[in-house]
């Protein structure tokens, strides 16, 4: 079994603060982490490797610092890591990213052999689009199962539990297949001192646009149909009605009255 896990290094969005004077995002000093859902995806892959002969390769697109995220993956179950990095890739939207990753995957496969399952997190916690996984699958012309919380591998096919608003669905697919992972009923494993030290020493090959053989016209800003026109920090002060009576019962009564007047009860 040959598994690829795609990961993204993201700023920890729980640590992002707003500069109240300029009303802009403070990015300095915000820790970078392996995207939460990608960590779930890696754990799901690692659990396959716990029970059968499998190799896990992780791949990330990003700047040189993203090697740190890849090393964290190497410490918790990944066997090999590749960084896809080139200035020509910056500014890529999800369509361009899906394209670049599909070409990069082919370059990695030339080294590691063809992948049976490609794991992605359901979405990244910085952009939250949930688009890159399916768009990578489309570029590869692979089947996909999105938003899964469990997977089993049976002979030549996989069986996965997909989470929807209306309940769970069991899907089956032939391989190769791409899956995107939501929160499973378990947490990612922790590294040990030994696995951390080994990961720190690991060499991480960097694939540039030349090695990936990506078309520059389809990469970066040029290959991205969407444009960010502007950004702004949402202002959160609704100036709602504050109820603070001496007795809780009186507060409750007042609120219920207001809700009733507004036709909400």
């Amino acid at each position, binding site marked *: 079994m040959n598994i690829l896990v795609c990961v993204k290094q993201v700023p920890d969005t729980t640590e992002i603060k707003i500069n109240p004077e300029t009303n802009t995002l403070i990015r300095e000093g915000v820790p970078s982490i392996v995207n939460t859902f990608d960590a779930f995806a890696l754990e799901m892959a690692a659990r396959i490797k716990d029970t059968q002969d499998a190799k896990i390769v992780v791949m990330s697109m990003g700047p040189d610092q993203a090697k740190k995220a890849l090393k964290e993956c190497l410490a918790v179950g990944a066997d090999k890591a590749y960084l896809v990095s080139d200035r020509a890739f910056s500014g890529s939207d999800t369509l361009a990213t899906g394209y670049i990753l599909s070409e990069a995957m082919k370059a990695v496969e030339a080294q590691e052999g063809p992948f049976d399952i490609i794991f992605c997190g359901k979405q990244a916690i910085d952009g939250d689009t949930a688009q890159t996984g399916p768009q990578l699958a*489309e570029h590869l012309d692979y089947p996909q199962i999105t938003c899964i919380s469990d997977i089993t591998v049976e002979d030549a096919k996989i069986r996965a539990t997909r989470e929807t608003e209306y309940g769970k669905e069991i*899907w*089956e697919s032939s391989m190769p297949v791409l899956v995107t992972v939501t929160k499973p009923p378990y947490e990612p494993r922790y590294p040990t001192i030994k696995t951390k030290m080994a990961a720190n020493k690991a060499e991480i090959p960097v694939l540039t646009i030349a090695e990936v053989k990506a078309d520059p016209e389809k990469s970066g800003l040029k290959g991205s149909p969407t444009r960010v026109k502007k950004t702004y920090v949402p202002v959160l002060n609704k100036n709602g009605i504050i109820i603070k009576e001496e007795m809780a019962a009186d507060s409750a009564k007042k609120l219920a009255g207001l809700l009733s007047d507004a036709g909400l009860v």
Partner: protein
Amino acid sequence: MDGYKNIWVWIETSSDGAARSVGLELLTPGRKMADTIGHSLIAVIIGSGADAAVKSAMAYGADQVILLDDECFAHYNTEIFTDALQELVEKYKPDTVLFGATANGRDLAPRIASRVHTGLTADCTELSIDAETGNVQWTRPAFGGNLMAVIECPNTRPQMGSVRPGVFKKGLRDDSRTVEVINETVKPPAESRAKIVEFIADAAENMVNLEEAEIIVSGGRGLGKPENFELVKALADALGGVVGSSRAAVDEGWIPHAHQVGQTGKTVGPKVYVACGISGAIQHLAGMSESDTIIAINKDPDASIFGVADYAIVGDLLEVLPALTAEVKRLKADKA
């Protein structure tokens, strides 16, 4: 980009052929944008025995319905639906396509956008269209709701985007409206590689449809202990709503993840959202700030949840919640 015309809304259907709510909700901003640029608003329905969905699309304001009705569309399937939608898009060349960001919408939209090489913007919270350029102004949160971005797709058509359930409200249903229905057919699907083989009915405690709920009462760490979720549930029952939670309460193991509202949970837009003992981390706000009316109950007067609240009670949950539940019950009994 010449020759691309009209605003499409993909109306997702359930297996009984009825429309999912979010598709009908999207007819509201779709109508506005179509009127702004003088295009028609078209509902695209792919399903099996989807008469009810067709009727709803008409009643909520579509100018025309394009219908693909066949047994092979009874259950959502990535490959079959992408192929079918591709055929329709290539035949009719819509200017804009809107998708509900349900599990299936989030599966289909990126796939079709990639197939036809165009831009897609996920989980928009505001939509408008620039009358001069014809570019939809897709507004969406990023960085866990810390930042809002306005996205355009200036050079390719159709321009595509998705919107979470509850962000827009359905218009008034007018069952007297009838519009043209184009019965389309597409080439029969090939055997798909990935498909549904089984549906699992969730355990009752996990069965919660927060996305389509009109009233949600959510509890957070401020409840102090899992038993106090009973107070949240009692208020939800009195109001006729469902129970949600913050991530903190899920992490504590007080309630299953299916109830979690926020960035790593569900995005909701009910008529009334009651946040009980939830401090209001931006990740939580990202999942519920589109609610029509927000009520926050918290003992900390500086809690950031109060920044988005229409009604704020500063006080002790253990006292406020039972009192509020009793008061709501009394009011309802009076009205009945």
